[in-house]
């Protein structure tokens, strides 16, 4: 817990200063989580503000300050999912949906000078975003929380309010889909169709 229970209690009671303290403390963490879940840096701040806005208006529904963090994560998950659904309705394309060349051109147009390290990071983001686009928005968020954020099954249980076995099944299926897409992309890269895909298939049957 990054803040004292007392601060959460004060924020619940309507203390604006305590609420600001909560926001300032969790802002960076929430923005990082949102960034990994939505995969679009320019909208991260907007979604994070939406999370804290929802937090402000639902503070009175929090049963006890002990469950504050999972509850904040739940708000983050819901706001990110809403954003992803809205974006799908609008039919917007992500950077991951564009080809590498288009991304480079977009970067050049923006006048950005990328170091090698940044270019590598961008490549990783692009690859993982493309892999995660193989699963539904809700599975993308779930996988991100488990595999990238490193949340335990117990923490996920408290966020999603479902039993462990249901979560395991969802995670397993989502991971298999991503693994299959990964195998496919590796085949395309190496030009050896079928080798990695067969491995992906065997993991699916396992």
């Amino acid at each position, binding site marked *: 817990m990054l803040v004292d229970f007392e601060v959460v209690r004060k924020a619940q009671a309507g203390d604006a200063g305590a609420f600001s303290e909560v*926001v300032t403390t969790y802002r960076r963490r929430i923005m990082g989580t949102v960034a990994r879940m939505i995969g679009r840096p320019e909208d991260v701040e907007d979604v994070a503000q939406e999370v804290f806005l929802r937090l402000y208006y639902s503070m009175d529904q929090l049963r006890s300050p002990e469950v504050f963090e999972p509850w904040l994560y739940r708000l983050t998950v819901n706001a990110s999912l809403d954003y992803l659904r809205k974006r799908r309705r609008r039919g917007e394309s992500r950077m991951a949906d564009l080809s590498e060349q288009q991304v480079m051109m977009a970067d050049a147009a923006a006048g950005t000078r990328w170091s090698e390290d940044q270019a590598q990071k961008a490549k990783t983001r692009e690859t993982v975003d493309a892999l995660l686009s193989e699963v539904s928005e809700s599975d993308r968020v779930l996988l991100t929380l488990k595999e990238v954020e490193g949340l335990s099954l117990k923490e996920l249980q408290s966020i999603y309010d479902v039993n462990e076995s249901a979560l395991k099944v969802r995670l397993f299926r989502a991971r298999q889909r991503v693994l299959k897409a990964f195998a496919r992309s590796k085949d395309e890269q190496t030009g050896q169709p079928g080798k990695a895909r067969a491995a992906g298939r065997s993991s699916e049957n396992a």
Partner: protein
Amino acid sequence: MVRDQRELEQELDGLLAAYRGACEAPEASANFMPQLWARIDARQSSSWFLKRWTEGFVAAAAAACLMVFLLQVVPEDVHSAVYHSTYLEALAQEKTPENSILLDVAAVAYPDQYSADSATK
């Protein structure tokens, strides 16, 4: 094959771990807090308006319900000819020049019920 699969899974795990590092939390802009409070205030004022409107609507609906209830409950004037007579009988009790013309017409149509005598009663 099993080794390939394990390698693939490990590679994927490595890629996801690298993704965490690649997606660093962006720095919040200086306007983050002022914008957040502005959004909170905006929603507060719109919800205040909605609350006021809802309260007004509920009060008007309650008043209308009360009025309908009173109209149902308040006993009607049981002695009034309006509720116990036909239109013409009620008319006969009102002695105005227009009524007497109408009663004359009624007397022609129904001589047994509306004779000149009953009209003068």
